[in-house]
């Protein structure tokens, strides 16, 4: 026998709903999400079982549905809030992993002799540019000379920047 079997007429259904709403108010005050979920299920059962389906009973059903949704939304909001709260720590941990990744990349680069290779590459480019400049000084036009000087300056700057960094 279920809790709905002996309820007959609008007054009885109304009384039943009032007792359910009192229990729902208690559940809403508690921190336990499961009891709110269980309470919302009882309110849904009320809607399923209330009878007859006339306007007055439908008004009760509407109240019960809204109360059930309210409890469920409260659960959702609290879980959302809990996700947001935890996100602060997650953001800090993510930063820690960024630093860990950067350290690991630096280790990998050092194992690959990356800085030495880059230095040599920049120096090679610088030497090539200077050699171009020298041959332009001998044979080229003014415009070619200016372009070669620009390139040489850029190459010299790269070498300087790299030396400053090391």
């Amino acid at each position, binding site marked *: 026998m279920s809790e709905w079997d002996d309820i007959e007429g609008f007054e009885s259904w109304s009384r039943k709903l009032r007792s359910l709403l009192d229990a729902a108010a208690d559940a809403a005050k508690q921190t336990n999400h499961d009891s709110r979920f269980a309470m919302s299920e009882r309110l849904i059962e009320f809607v399923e079982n209330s*009878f007859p389906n006339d306007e007055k009973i439908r008004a009760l059903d509407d109240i019960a549905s809204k109360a059930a949704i309210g409890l469920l939304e409260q659960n*959702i909001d609290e879980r959302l809030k809990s996700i947001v709260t935890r996100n602060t720590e997650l953001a800090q941990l993510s930063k820690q992993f960024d630093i*860990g990744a950067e350290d690991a*990349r630096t280790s*990998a680069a050092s194992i690959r002799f990356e800085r030495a290779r880059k230095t040599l590459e920049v120096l090679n480019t610088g030497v090539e540019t200077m050699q171009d400049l020298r041959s332009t000084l001998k044979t080229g036009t003014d415009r070619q000379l200016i372009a070669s000087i620009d390139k040489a300056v850029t190459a010299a700057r790269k070498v300087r920047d790299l030396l400053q960094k090391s």
Partner: protein
Amino acid sequence: MTPLAHLARHAQRSCFAVLALCAAAGCATPPDAGRLADASAQLRSAIAASGSTVAFELDAAGESERARQLRDAWAAPDRSAVALSQYSDAVAGIIRSGREGGDTVRRLADAGVQLASGVGIALPAAGAVAAGVDLAAYVYQQIALARSAASLEQSLARMQPAVDRIADVIGHQLDDAQAILFNANKVAEVRMRDQFSDETGYLLALRKERQALYRVTPLTTANAERLLQIDKVERTVTSRLEPMDAERKASSIRVRNALLLIAATRQAVIDWAGAHRQLLAAVRDGSAVDPHALLQSVVDVRELIRKVRAQ
């Protein structure tokens, strides 16, 4: 001194150190971290899919504002999955660098030879240079392996507490996401029931009337006719409830797949942290890495993401 000569001298000096390191560390090649990196990429998709599938359920329940809030909030778990993935890639990069030590020396030597000839420095005969480079490459390969093992151990050991903590925090985020899924699904059910309340209410009335007629004995002709009529009307009303039943079935499949995805993601996070711990142990004491659990969770997660996206 040319870079090449410097390299050769460095190689000679390092040779003894390498031999000593090899003796100490057993010169074991660092374990493969590629699987950890692959699993991290999959984990990233799984965490993103878990968030979006729950947000979809909120939308389906008519809770679009809360769906938006969840999507915004889920940016942090997404971002942490990206950080995990990049970290795993970088760890795998240390091991790759160790393995590619010999090639590095050859590339470095090529650049050195180019520079020396560019500035007009006379180099030894080509054969001698090549032999020097080969020796340097071999020696450096050993140095790189030993250095990569040491760097890897340092990186893994430093990050292990953060790995354990992030696995725990992401696990809790997934628990909350799962609870939101349950509640959102219930809200959707209540709203759908409201939408079809005329039909469900009428069905209830018909059922009650039929039960009342069953209790009247003996069965009169009028009551028998009424029972037949109730049957007919009931079928008509039930057919009007078909859209609700169809949506219920679809929603139940969606929720089941979402729950499986969340559970698999939670397991994948645990397995990822476990694999990280195993990798650290492997680097420290040369124990084998068993990728079975990690690979299985990757397979599970991939299949579930496919299912969830196909919905």
